[in-house]
């Protein structure tokens, strides 16, 4: 019967080993560096690893190495803590057909003893790894994406029909900071669709009931309430707090044009959503790379042609659909994945069960984001939307 020491001795005799000094020269040398694979456990990796290494625990090595290095002729250096597990890993890679594999003699311990550079990544703690487990399983999100969401800041204009589902999903997703601008208190007629608020919240400022609901859902989220109407006077202060994305769920034209102009000047993308009865629309206005709200609608319609939900009604679930689509676009922008709805207006018709799309283009003559802007400071938005033009 072969003991562990004997087995290790035989394996080491079969494989190539490289000492820390030579490995460092290879990694930092002028030639194409070898792929450096750390085969230790997750907790060991989290405590520190060699910069530039990829982490493939030994138990997953066979199944994951081909994705990390499909070319079997390219050199690979594997390491563990002391050079034993990596010796077995090197043999396995040889069996898989990798031609140039060596094991770091003395492992990470010896590397550190030489005073060579190490790196400690920010990592999710076990509790967060469980909470966000379904995100971590998606390659496009993963731990890096989840950490990015936890560092992200989203400002919601309105905690009403659209803001409710958007805020709930963004909070659940672990967006680290959610700002909410809303001056209203919870009214009984809100509860048919504004799922952020409950019957017990009647009469409570929406920013307060929103904060309670969102922090109860996810304590990782820091909710910042602005119990005020967005105006030309406060918009720079509120937007100036450094938001990555704005979710526009306002309920009136003056606020929408104000949000547009301010977002262009602050260079913050806006996820637009609007709803009426059974129909809603959403798009992304990304300054510099797509049209803005004024490119799409240079003028608001006169008030008699633009009834609000309060006047015309809205199916309760409709903001659930559109607000969720807005949250989806926000997450895509924050993570830098997918095809954002820049230059595309999505139209949803709940009765027909149809989703349509139209193209929207940047207007070179746009008074705010065009080549020669004529509006360069805040205007009187109420007057502008009432059709009183200078």
């Amino acid at each position, binding site marked *: 019967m072969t003991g562990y020491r004997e087995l290790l001795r035989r394996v080491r005799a079969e494989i190539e080993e490289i000492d820390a000094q030579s490995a460092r020269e290879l990694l930092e040398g002028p030639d194409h560096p070898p792929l450096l694979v750390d085969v230790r456990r997750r907790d060991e990796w989290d405590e520190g690893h060699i910069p530039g290494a990829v982490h493939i625990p030994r138990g997953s090595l066979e199944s994951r190495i081909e994705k990390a290095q499909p070319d079997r002729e390219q050199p690979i250096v594997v390491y563990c803590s002391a050079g034993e597990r990596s010796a077995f890993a090197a043999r396995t890679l040889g069996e898989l057909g990798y031609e140039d594999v060596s094991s770091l003699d003395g492992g990470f311990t010896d590397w550190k003893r030489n005073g060579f550079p190490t790196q400690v990544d920010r990592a999710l703690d076990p509790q967060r790894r469980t909470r966000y487990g379904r995100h971590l399983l998606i390659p496009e999100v993963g731990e890096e994406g989840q950490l990015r969401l936890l560092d992200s800041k989203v400002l919601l204009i309105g905690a009403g029909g659209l803001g409710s589902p958007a805020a709930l999903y963004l909070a659940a997703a672990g967006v680290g900071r959610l700002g909410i601008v809303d001056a209203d208190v919870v009214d009984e007629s809100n509860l048919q669709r504004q799922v952020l608020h409950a019957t017990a919240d009647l009469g409570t400022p929406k920013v307060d009931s929103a904060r309670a609901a969102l922090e109860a859902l996810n304590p990782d989220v820091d909710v910042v309430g602005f119990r005020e109407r967005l105006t030309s006077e406060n918009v720079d202060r509120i937007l100036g707090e450094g938001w990555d994305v704005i979710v526009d769920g306002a309920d009136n034209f003056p606020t929408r044009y104000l949000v547009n102009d301010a977002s262009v000047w602050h260079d913050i993308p806006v996820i637009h959503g609007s*709803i009426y009865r059974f*129909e809603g629309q959403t798009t992304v206005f990304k300054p510099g790379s797509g049209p803005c709200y004024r490119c*799409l609608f240079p003028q608001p319609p006169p008030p008699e042609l633009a009834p609000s939900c309060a006047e015309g009604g809205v199916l309760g679930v409709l903001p659930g659909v559109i607000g969720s689509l807005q949250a989806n676009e926000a997450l895509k922008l924050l993570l830098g994945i997918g095809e954002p709805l820049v230059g595309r207006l999505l139209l949803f018709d709940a009765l027909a069960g149809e989703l349509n799309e*139209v193209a929207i283009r940047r207007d070179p003559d746009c008074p705010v984001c065009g080549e020669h802007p004529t509006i360069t400071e805040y205007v009187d938005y109420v007057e502008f939307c009432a059709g009183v033009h200078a």
Partner: protein
Amino acid sequence: MSVVRIPPTLRDDTRGQREVIADGETVRDLLDDLTARFPSLEGKLEFANVYVGGEDVRTRDGYETTVSAGDTVILLPAMAGGS
């Protein structure tokens, strides 16, 4: 003949119809035909964006953009509602 999508804010003028058939070789002809059949639309259509085949006619020839039989035309005014 083209199918024209009527936005919800203008459906009171089209007797509740979500889609109507209109006739015309250009967007202007089409809108004139619509207004002739639904007179209360007079003065309201200019506030709507017009899309032919998914493209905003402002990026084509405006109201002179030609419309082919079978094109779907979407009228889309701004909607403010969000709460």
